[in-house]
């Protein structure tokens, strides 16, 4: 219990500082876990309570992701979304996978690393667009829809790798069946659900919490992992009143997820057997690979490499989903690599996102300057 209280206290301090400086908090939560955990004298240790909190964090993160997939959110500019999504997926998955495999990870480990490498942090990308006042830029729309696309890919990916030894087709049918049942429940119980959500006593929040936990617990009987169950619940609930569900689930997500990040950090062990070359190479490549996909997206969608630079700036940061992948499937070595990648990319990303305007102007001026120099000859 003391570990949890200490962790919460540290998170509170870190949250205050990072919000004040408007920098992302996620890397610092992880770093705090790393420094106070195994790597740093074991002030924080994982136990049953922290394990439960962390699991809740993961479950609510995924429930939120499901809620975000509202059916009416099918983009009007489908071709652009699809093009940018496919560029992003291919470039980053391939570079991530090749790098991990060539650096000596097994096939499965390389796949996990590649997915964590591919998926940018939706939370950090959107916060960066809002806080750096970039919402009006045309690249912002591209970034926002890219995040939706990445979430969809992540769900498909989670479904495929969580099948384990089961027959994949049978497994996918089971997931679809669960989704169908939850959809039907949400559809036929819509009036009832909305009447519960409209109340201003403890019922809406209690219902939301219980619904998520009960659905997750069914995974034991159905052989469908918790992750898939709660995403499906989120998707089904999104057809009723997603904003109300987001509002009632947010307190749980916010608290549990922070604990999840810290205790993920605690399990990370940079001291024992960490290969700094591998970690450094993956982290560096994670920044470079998004630059390549960003530039290509900028050129294909907006006809400008400078636009690509802006897309890159806002998608460098890897975060919550990469860590979720590490926690669900990663071995300790994979976890350590992903932790380092998240810390490096999120810090570099927030910095570049903040100064991307200056970067762009710098490049434009430099280009003009060179053009003028050439003309004078």
């Amino acid at each position, binding site marked *: 219990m003391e570990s949890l209280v200490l962790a919460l206290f540290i998170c509170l301090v870190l949250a205050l500082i990072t919000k004040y400086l408007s920098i992302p908090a996620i890397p610092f939560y992880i770093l705090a876990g790393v420094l106070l955990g195994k790597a740093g004298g074991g002030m924080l240790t994982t136990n049953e309570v922290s394990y439960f909190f962390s699991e809740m964090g993961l479950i609510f993160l995924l429930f939120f992701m499901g809620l975000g997939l509202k059916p009416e*959110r099918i983009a009007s500019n489908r071709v652009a979304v699809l093009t940018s999504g496919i560029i992003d997926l291919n470039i980053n998955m391939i570079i991530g996978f090749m790098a991990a495999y060539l650096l000596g990870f097994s096939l499965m480990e390389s796949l996990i690393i590649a997915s964590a490498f591919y998926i940018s942090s939706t939370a950090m990308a959107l916060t960066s667009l809002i806080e750096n006042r970039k*919402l009006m830029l045309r690249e912002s729309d591209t970034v926002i829809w890219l995040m*939706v696309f990445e979430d969809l890919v992540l769900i498909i990916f989670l479904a495929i790798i969580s099948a384990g030894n089961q027959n994949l087709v049978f497994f996918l049918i089971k997931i679809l069946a669960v989704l169908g049942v939850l959809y039907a429940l949400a559809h036929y119980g819509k009036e009832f659900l909305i009447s519960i959500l409209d109340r201003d006593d403890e019922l809406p929040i209690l219902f939301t919490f219980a619904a998520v936990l009960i659905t997750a617990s069914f995974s034991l009987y159905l052989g469908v992992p918790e992750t898939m169950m709660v995403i499906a619940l989120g998707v089904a609930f999104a057809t009723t009143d997603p904003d109300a569900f987001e509002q009632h689930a947010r307190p749980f997500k916010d608290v549990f997820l922070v604990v999840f990040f810290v205790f993920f950090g605690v399990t990370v062990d940079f001291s024992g057997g960490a290969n700094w070359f591998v970690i450094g190479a993956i982290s560096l490549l994670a920044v470079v690979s998004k630059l390549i996909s960003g530039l290509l997206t900028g050129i294909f969608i907006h006809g400008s490499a400078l636009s690509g630079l802006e897309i890159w700036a806002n998608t460098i940061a890897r975060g919550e989903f990469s860590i979720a992948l590490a926690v669900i499937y990663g071995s300790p070595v994979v976890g350590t690599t992903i932790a380092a990648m998240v810390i490096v990319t999120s810090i570099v990303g927030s910095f570049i996102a903040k100064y991307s305007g200056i970067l762009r102007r710098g490049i434009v001026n430099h280009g003009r300057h060179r053009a003028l120099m050439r003309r004078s000859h």
Partner: protein
Amino acid sequence: MSAMALRSLNLPGVGTKYEFETDKGDTVAIFFTKTGSIQMYTLQKNCHTPSAAEMSPVEARRLGNILTGAIIEADQESVEIAFSALADLRITIHTFFVTSAVVGKTIEDLQIRAKTGATVIAVYRHDRNIINPPPTFVFEKGDAALVIGESDQIKKFEREIMVN
């Protein structure tokens, strides 16, 4: 009017965007973000970098009041509502901080309705609102009065009742 076409767009995870281009080719975009803040961007024609302002909901409403053309002063505000179905009836609601001229007097003494046509519909006093004050209501120092009427009546109220 085609240039005024207002586009609204739902941005997943961010909020709602409203955008329109003015006749002169400038663009204004408003974002209601999920964090509760409101961001307004303006982009001048032929310019590439928009400028932005972030507002709280209260500030945004204030800006809205200014833009609708209602009278507004430093710490007083007013809202004008136009009913286009009723021969373009325009009703203004304005807040006034009471001046020494009215302190200690009742609404009846001041003959507010007879002199100006405007009506005091609420008074804010010590963090409380007194709705529909009776004619015998006595103004105190520090009160803020909410007055409703047509724009001319409100101006008359300001000139004749709130004189210093």
